[in-house]
């Protein structure tokens, strides 16, 4: 195994799409650059999705334009990528390579992999904290959380956890890290300053994905084997007397992750081929959308909810207000998109 800290330079973007699509994307970048008189901006404007293609050792970078056919390019990363975390400020994506035992950093402006660094034994869930400029990575096989500095992925610490940690989430102020410890059947809260575990709270069977609601007040956890979602009061989670679990909401078969838009939570039900739509205020299920085969990664740009279909290898847009299906985007092989993969503008 490569030692932690080794850096492997990778070739730049691998274009796998039709030449027309490639030209269209390139033209967009040129247009953005040309319109700026000061020059030198390298970032591509507009929202993007960055979806890990686990069977293709790549990510698909999708320029999101719900009203027309989105432009897609596929960029090589490490082996069997699973988790994705995007950073709006640096316009980079951090990708956990489950089998490559590494994290890749992708420059979203140029559409190329900047570098790949060895991290642990089984990196899965990944989250970026712009406040502390860190990347947190759950290690499925080492049962730990890697704390990495975000510029060069230097290791700050490795925090021991219980068996099979999966999803990772960071509070907006960067003070708290939340991890779903799948086989311990809990959600853990870690203080990001001391890196001490503050509390653990029991949830449903096999917690996997988790996401904070936009107001930061509740943490939503998908329980894969109990087919439900635990809605946890973030304040109660740290109060000894508090009742942390506000509600346990039944969803479809084997939920994967949660996204929020328009006051609603959207839960991808892997084996239910559906998305459960829950009103965040009332905690009532308002719809179950039969959508795609094996929906997994789910995220939102505020208006559209983007759902990755692992089986059909595509991403589907859902209008968060009308719940109508908008566009379908082709992805690479066995796509997952576990984490916050949409960069809203």
């Amino acid at each position, binding site marked *: 195994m490569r030692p932690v800290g080794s850096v492997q330079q990778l070739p730049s973007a691998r274009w796998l799409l039709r030449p027309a699509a490639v030209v269209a994307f390139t033209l967009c970048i040129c247009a953005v650059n040309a319109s700026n008189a000061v020059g030198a901006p390298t970032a591509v404007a507009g929202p993007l999705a960055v979806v890990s293609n686990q069977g293709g050792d790549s990510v698909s970078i999708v320029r999101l334009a719900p009203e027309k056919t989105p432009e897609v390019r596929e960029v090589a990363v490490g082996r069997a990528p699973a988790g994705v975390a995007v950073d709006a400020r640096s316009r980079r994506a951090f990708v956990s390579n489950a089998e490559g035992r590494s994290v890749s950093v992708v420059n979203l402006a140029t559409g190329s992999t900047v570098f790949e660094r060895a991290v642990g034994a*089984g990196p899965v869930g990944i989250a970026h904290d712009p406040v502390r400029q860190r990347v947190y990575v759950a290690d*499925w096989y080492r049962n730990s959380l890697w704390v990495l500095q975000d510029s060069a992925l230097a290791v700050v610490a490795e925090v021991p956890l219980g068996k099979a940690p999966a999803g990772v989430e960071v509070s907006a102020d960067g003070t708290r890290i939340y991890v779903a410890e799948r086989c311990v059947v809990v959600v853990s809260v870690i203080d990001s300053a001391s890196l001490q575990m503050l509390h653990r709270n029991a949830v449903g069977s096999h917690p996997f994905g988790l996401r904070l609601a936009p107001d930061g007040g509740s943490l939503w956890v998908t329980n894969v084997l109990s087919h439900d979602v635990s809605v946890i009061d973030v304040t109660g989670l740290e109060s000894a007397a508090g009742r942390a679990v506000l509600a346990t909401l039944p969803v479809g078969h084997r939920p994967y992750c949660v996204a929020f838009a328009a006051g609603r939570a959207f839960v991808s039900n892997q084996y239910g081929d559906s998305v459960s739509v829950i009103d965040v205020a009332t905690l009532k299920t308002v719809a179950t959308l039969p959508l795609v085969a094996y929906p997994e990664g789910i995220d939102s740009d505020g208006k559209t909810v983007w759902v990755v279909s692992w*089986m059909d290898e595509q991403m589907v847009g859902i209008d968060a207000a009308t719940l109508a299906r908008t566009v379908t985007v082709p992805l690479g092989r*066995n796509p997952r998109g576990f984490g916050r993969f949409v960069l809203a503008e």
Partner: protein
Amino acid sequence: MSFIRLIAVAALALPGLAVAHGPTRQKAVEAVEIAAPPAAVWALIKDWGGMAKWHPAVGEVALNGTTERILKLKGGGNVVEELEVVDDGSMTLRYRMKDSGPVPVNNYSAAISVVAQGSGSLVQWKGAFYRAYLNNDPPPEQSDEAAVKAITGIYKSGLENLKKVAEGK
């Protein structure tokens, strides 16, 4: 029957099953065109206890209640499966393995569906599963490749024979 041979080899190597799995799910997708009406093909597939009528690797099916079936394989060993959905509208049957027996997979789920195609049918079989080995660095017979190969073999041989049975050949 390369599938049966595969199963026999895997049976020797596989100590047992566990609930947990690694982070990399695999898939197998196969399809066949059949010159028979969709309703007739669907009738064969939705017959939960009737898989031995069309799958050449299945010797006998024992039903346990209405949703559990035990497939007694001709190559030796049993597979236990749970029916999850039978939808006549979309002509889709969804099920999962409760015990994969000699098949080198974990956490297997699948769907078989029939759609009309021209004057005949198109049958699609899509499965999702993890390899048998639950940790890093699997031995070859419990690897991702072994899992995909085994399931692909099951689908190909099954669909090939389903076509023969449905077409009355």
